[in-house]
């Protein structure tokens, strides 16, 4: 193609798009946020929550593994021994200070992968703009879900923050934590893990395997019922 022909071909492409958009009103790829919301992928990395067990106990055991894993050094955890008469977590210790500086967080979810108890997970909420820096630091008050499983937010009256997104789980890889059936090891399975209690399993996850030994399947089923 000579330069003039190439030039005309290019001009034709843009003009075609113009006609299509101007007269047909079609072809635009813009999503008019915040009037329209993009459908977020299941693995979306949004704001963190700290989860509880179904009985209301906090999952966090104050081990600081998340803080160690965090590449942005934005997690601050202090653990202390559980009071023997009214324990906060089922473990030996619990996190009595838990802060994340979300202005520094890069939403990599390494903290989620590091956590041994699935205490910290991510949700789909991403609207966290603030007008001062102090509001970027989320403490245990906002991060920890309520005993009934409802999440907290710093700006509950924020018109753009859809708090429903806080209960939509990020779905992180179960293979990263000691949960799920051994038969599914290496496969990507999703656990909607925000809030408390157990969630419906992934399709096919709770069905017994055909080729498996009956007894083995039973033993494993028992395993997974004790699983959070």
């Amino acid at each position, binding site marked *: 193609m000579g330069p003039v022909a190439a*030039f005309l071909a*290019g001009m034709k*492409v*843009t003009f075609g798009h*113009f006609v299509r*958009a101007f007269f047909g009103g079609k072809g*635009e*790829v813009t999503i008019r946020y915040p009037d329209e919301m993009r459908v977020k992928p299941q693995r979306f990395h949004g704001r963190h929550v700290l989860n509880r067990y179904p009985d209301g106990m906090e999952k966090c055991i104050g081990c600081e593994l998340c803080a160690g894993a965090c590449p942005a050094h934005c997690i601050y955890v202090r653990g202390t021994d559980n009071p023997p008469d009214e324990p906060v977590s089922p473990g030996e210790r619990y996190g009595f200070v838990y802060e994340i500086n979300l202005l520094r967080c890069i939403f990599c979810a390494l903290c989620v992968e590091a956590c041994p108890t699935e205490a910290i997970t991510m949700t789909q909420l991403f609207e966290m703009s603030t007008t001062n820096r102090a509001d970027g630091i989320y403490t245990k008050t906002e991060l920890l879900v309520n005993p009934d499983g409802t999440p907290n937010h710093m700006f509950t009256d924020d018109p753009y923050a859809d708090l429903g997104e806080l209960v939509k789980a990020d779905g992180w890889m179960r293979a990263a934590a000691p949960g799920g059936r051994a038969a599914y090891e290496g496969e990507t399975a999703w656990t909607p893990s925000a809030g408390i209690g157990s969630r419906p399993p992934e399709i096919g996850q709770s069905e017994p395997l055909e080729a498996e030994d009956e007894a083995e399947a039973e033993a494993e089923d028992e395993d997974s019922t004790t699983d959070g």
Partner: protein
Amino acid sequence: MDGWDFILIVIRVVVIFVMLMITTLLLVWFERKVVADMQDRIGPARAGPWGMLQTLADGMKLFFKEQITPRKVEFGLYIAAPILATIPAFLIFMTVPFGRPFTLNLGGEPREILLQGADLNIGLLFILSMSSIAVYAVVLAGWSSGSKYPLLGGVRATAQAISYEAALGLSVIPVVMYTGSVQLSEIVEFQRANLQFLGNVVPFIPNWNLFLLAPSFVIFFIAAVAETNRAPFDLVEAEQELVGGFHTEYSGLRFALFFLAEYINMFTMSAIAVTLFMGGWSGPTWDGVLPALISGVLPTFWFFAKVVVLLFVYVWLRATLPRLRYDQLMEFGWKRLIPGALAWLMIIAVVLAWRQFGNPWS
């Protein structure tokens, strides 16, 4: 010249000034919308109907922003550059007729009111000289900023301006030779007749220079794009290489002036192309059929309609073409455009001489 003449001049100048400001507002919006459509986006959509007031908002933002003055600037020239860019931009348009003159009874006698800032008898020369002055603004801005990217932008501007101004001037000469005038109102008047030769057969084709001098028009338009530093010839402010080019060190209102000048220049260059090649404000007015007011406004409408078509081409080019490399720019200017313009000029000269003096062998 009495009081009324003076008032009329002042009114004309103010009207043109306001018109250019409004045009710039709409032009920036127009460009953003059209480019958005071409790129499958939606463009500004929030401020005002269809985002029309977006430019106003941007302009107000620039107006209230801090004007940072870097330490190493040559202060006098640094301040003068944006002013030097803006004034010629306004002055050029002053010579362009944008509507049919009409008569009005003022102060007891009928006066002809031109829809034109000033009907200079050297109109075209004035335009060419003013557009050269506008280049100084870019050069001075680059030089006085005291930093390397603006300097590179300024150096590029010099080279580009020299290369393309030659082509611009050469492409205009056939028009002058053909119409026999450098006064813009006369050039428009010349094109109002029916097309010569063909016009006797198909009477409604206007005598636009575009038809007979098409190569001139193409060269003029390309050179005009280069003169206004628009894509694909925007090497002067190539963002990816030179940050902002000559206006890197400008902020706030001073930057806004450069921005304003660029868009006014774009509009004026289209207006001049329309005047020289597309009959200016001429067009069917249906005098006597339509009310006098509408017939009087129609020429202005035709003028702006033609300008918008050319502006669309400007924007269309910008949305389509990548920026030229520097050597390509120079090669295109010196090896294609200028020889082409010269050859075409000679052809026209020979043809016109032939028509005027008859066969050379007779």
